């Protein structure tokens, strides 16, 4: 077991599985290649599908050489708008909260470059690939609208998933007018693609009017319902399996057109069909982070206290559907201010529809906010950490509600201590390393909501003293196979080794969505509750039976400990689960529960995870090459179920922040609308050598309100403080304030 120091002792409780730094329960499967991802399935009689994609961004497909494709040896079927089987519901319907209008070959219209325009089915992948190539589409193109200037601006009503586009509290203009110091900051963030390592994939196999679908999916019950709706069969006729997801980051919560087409195609040809997206085919139909243009205005009094905070974002969406990155909302819940306003505008361009991508809104909004706050600190002549402490929000600025918990002060203190922030010169360009490179230190606050959704779970105590627990929860790398099993074991009062944990399958109770940093809290609460329910039933059996040493103790008089029920007041009286079940002649005893937030707490408290990120950059003074040399983050996210895995999540998030700051940017040719970097060579994400020393500290935090487990979430918060911290370090090194992401060499050379 690796060394995993904690900053507080509170994660581990006596006799508890939670809080232990266990290694991954699915680790052996993953390091031996035995973990089965969707595209690894090969049912008998399998055919391969490849979809052809549009090379224009707007217009019509006028011709497809279907005859040439069909004539290629091995090609079995070519599906185009002319012969596509009917859908049971309109492709513009939105069956779930994670639904967008999809392309299912409904007509010859092209709405973005990369849109699927035909599907070729063949005996081999090679034949299907060649068949798709032979289609040689002819087009009637129309001019593409790609940038903020070309797009069609519109008034947004909602952003994200149903949030209001505008928010006001207090008098912002008056607050700005009365300020001693005012700062205005503008920044642009680019279009970004999830680029999970595992491409989107689906294997569909029909048996009569039932279909088994292997496809990576972050929300299995929702995905099952969405497939069923399009295919015109009851949800129970869809078996959706997603035991492992090779990275999701939001994009695999969404059903796209090609997914639906592959399932339709399998029914049409009467054989199983596998469709695996090519890397470039994921630019368009499976979502992305929309580009933003943001403007912040901050007013401060003479002591550096905010008098007003105004955050405006114009964000890109597609020409045919809405997902607006709720960037400005990132300013609502973190700094104390008497006047606060956020608002969004939209711009329609000829790209695929954006969608949630790890910290949707928070990532791009926090990047802008933290840079603006740094600029404000500079304008006031105050250290950036001290400035943030002066504007520390004791209650939620947006609602006035108390926080359910907020150990942000401790995050600032522990992060600063670990990083060595003290003594940082206020002015830029004051530090150099031995090689003459400019050194800069920057910081940012991290914030992410701590939501809960709804999940169900079932727990079954078995006669042999083990237990089976089930929920259709999803592990896309965050560690659900391990952390949720730990929680389930605690609910049952069993060591985790005695738990058989099943997840990732639509036959299980609805495990909700792996997203929004709420999966551990939600599915975990359901699992814990189901275990507790089973134990309560077991206690009834024991305390009601005269032969039990626990007879007469009453339900509240016993507690579950390592497979035994123990009398609370007389610990010498106890009985094993196996003995209780054996005497009752019961082979299995089941409990169930729903995980959801207490509505009263949800109404009365503001619930967020918090953190502070500190960054050091090195900048070559002549070449302006930027390297991040150190990242330290300190995060308070309620109770940590598995510090080993939580730290990995936070590290990964911080590296996503580094990627946002210095690497990632999707480029589209403004003349054609086509992607210029729809591959992993041109779309830059960090490689191992790009990643410096990254350290995530786990700051102790007890939260009695978020849920009885005290769990918040760690999946997304790591990005939020990091982008700003790096940009602010670049300013501190060079004196140049970055105005766009990613920060390029050119931006520093031209400054």
């Amino acid at each position, binding site marked *: 077991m690796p060394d995993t120091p904690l900053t507080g002792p509170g994660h581990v409780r006596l006799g508890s599985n939670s809080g232990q730094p266990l290694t991954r329960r699915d680790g052996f499967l993953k390091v031996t290649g035995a973990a089965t991802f969707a*595209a690894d399935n090969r049912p008998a009689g399998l055919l391969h599908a490849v979809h052809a994609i549009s090379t224009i961004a707007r217009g019509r497909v006028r011709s497809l050489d279907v005859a040439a494709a069909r004539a290629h040896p091995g090609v079995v079927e070519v599906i185009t708008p002319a012969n596509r089987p009917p859908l049971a519901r309109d492709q513009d319907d939105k069956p779930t909260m994670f639904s967008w209008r999809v392309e299912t070959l409904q007509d010859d219209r092209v709405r973005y470059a990369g849109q699927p325009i035909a599907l070729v089915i063949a005996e081999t992948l090679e034949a299907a690939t060649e068949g798709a190539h032979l289609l040689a589409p002819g087009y009637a193109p129309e001019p593409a609208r790609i940038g903020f200037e070309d797009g069609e601006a519109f008034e947004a009503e909602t952003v994200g998933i149903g949030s209001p586009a505008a928010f006001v509290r207090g008098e912002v203009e008056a607050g700005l007018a009365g300020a001693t110091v005012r700062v205005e900051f503008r920044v642009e963030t680019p279009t970004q693609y999830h680029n999970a390592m595992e491409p989107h994939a689906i294997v569909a196999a029909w048996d009569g009017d039932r279909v088994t679908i292997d496809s990576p999916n972050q929300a299995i019950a929702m995905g099952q319902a969405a497939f069923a709706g399009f295919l015109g069969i009851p949800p129970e006729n869809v078996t959706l399996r997603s035991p492992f997801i090779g990275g999701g980051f939001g994009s695999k919560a969404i059903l796209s057109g090609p997914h639906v087409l592959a399932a339709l195609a399998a029914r049409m040809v009467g054989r199983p069909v596998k469709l695996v997206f090519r890397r470039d085919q994921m630019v368009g139909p499976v979502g992305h982070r929309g580009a933003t243009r943001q403007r912040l205005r901050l007013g401060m009094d003479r002591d550096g206290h905010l008098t007003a905070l105004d955050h405006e974002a114009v964000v890109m969406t597609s020409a045919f559907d809405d997902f607006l990155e709720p960037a400005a909302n990132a300013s609502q819940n973190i700094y104390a201010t008497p006047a606060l306003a956020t608002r969004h505008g939209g711009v329609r361009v000829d790209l695929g529809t954006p969608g949630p991508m790890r910290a949707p809104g928070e990532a791009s909004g926090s990047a802008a906010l933290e840079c603006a706050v740094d600029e404000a600190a500079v304008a006031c002549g105050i250290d950036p950490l001290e400035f943030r402490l002066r504007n520390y929000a004791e209650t939620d600025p947006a609602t006035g509600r108390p926080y359910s918990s907020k150990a942000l002060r401790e995050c600032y203190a522990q992060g600063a201590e670990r990083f060595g922030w003290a003594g940082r010169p206020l002015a830029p360009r004051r530090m150099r390393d031995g090689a003459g490179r400019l050194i800069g230190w920057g910081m940012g606050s991290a914030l992410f909501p701590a939501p809960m959704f709804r999940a169900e779970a079932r727990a079954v105590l078995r006669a042999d003293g083990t237990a089976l627990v089930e929920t259709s929860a999803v592990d896309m790398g965050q560690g659900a196979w391990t952390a949720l099993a730990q929680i389930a074991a605690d609910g049952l009062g069993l060591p985790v080794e005695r738990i058989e944990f099943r997840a990732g399958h639509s036959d299980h109770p609805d495990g909700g969505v792996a997203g929004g940093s709420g999966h551990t809290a939600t599915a975990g609460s359901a699992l814990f509750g189901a275990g507790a329910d089973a134990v309560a039933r077991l206690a009834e059996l024991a305390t009601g039976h005269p032969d039990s040493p626990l007879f007469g103790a009453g339900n509240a008089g016993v507690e579950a400990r390592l497979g035994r029920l123990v009398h609370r007041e007389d610990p010498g009286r106890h009985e094993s689960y196996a003995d209780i079940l054996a005497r009752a002649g019961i082979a299995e005893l089941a409990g169930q529960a729903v995980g959801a937030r207490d509505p009263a707490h949800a109404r009365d408290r503001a619930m967020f995870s918090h953190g502070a990120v500190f960054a050091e950059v090195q900048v070559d003074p002549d070449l302006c090459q930027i390297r991040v040399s150190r990242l330290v983050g300190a995060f308070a996210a309620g109770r940590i179920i598995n510090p080993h895995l939580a730290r990995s999540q936070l590290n990964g998030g911080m590296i996503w922040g580094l990627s946002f700051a210095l690497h990632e940017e999707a480029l589209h040719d403004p003349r054609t609308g086509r992607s210029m970097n729809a591959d992993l060579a041109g779309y830059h994400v960090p490689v191992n050598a790009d990643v410096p020393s990254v350290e995530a500290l786990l700051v102790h935090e007890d939260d009695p309100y978020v849920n009885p487990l005290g769990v918040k979430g760690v999946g997304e918060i790591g990005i939020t403080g990091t982008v700003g911290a790096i940009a602010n370090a670049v300013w501190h090194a060079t004196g140049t304030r970055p105005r766009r992401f990613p920060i390029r060499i050119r931006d520093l050379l031209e400054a």
Partner: protein
Amino acid sequence: MTYSFSLTVNGATRAVEIEDPRVTLLDLLRERLALTGTKKGCDRGQCGACTVLVDGRRVNACLILAVTLDGAEIETIEGVADGNRPHPVQEAFIAHDGFQCGFCTPGQIMSAIGLLREGETGEDRERIREGMSGNLCRCAAYAGITEAVAAAQRALAAGDRRRA
């Protein structure tokens, strides 16, 4: 026309007959030899998820045509563990959490085994990072990967000393 050749995969000789010369080593392994542990992340040599060893060298299996490999010796992730006993590199990846989703992991591990055999990094973290930079990890488990490779290097060196 069919193409017949034979290659050794994880120590076993496999006679292969394919009807299509366009089949890559990666698709041969995954779609025809039922060895799906090797992953396809980009199919153009940019991500490293399909890394295998061909005659002892690290190779992106998506970039090499199967028909060119007559007589070659291929090592894939399925051949690394000794039954239920993981290889020291696999053990180190688990202990140091050198992965999250696990999709790039078979390629990372094959790359790490190749790197250690190349024998040029020792436990030098900088050189390990460079040597592992042909393998992308979008979950960004890089810190764990680097530590795992260093730990495996230590374990393998200790094993060699014991054997000597």
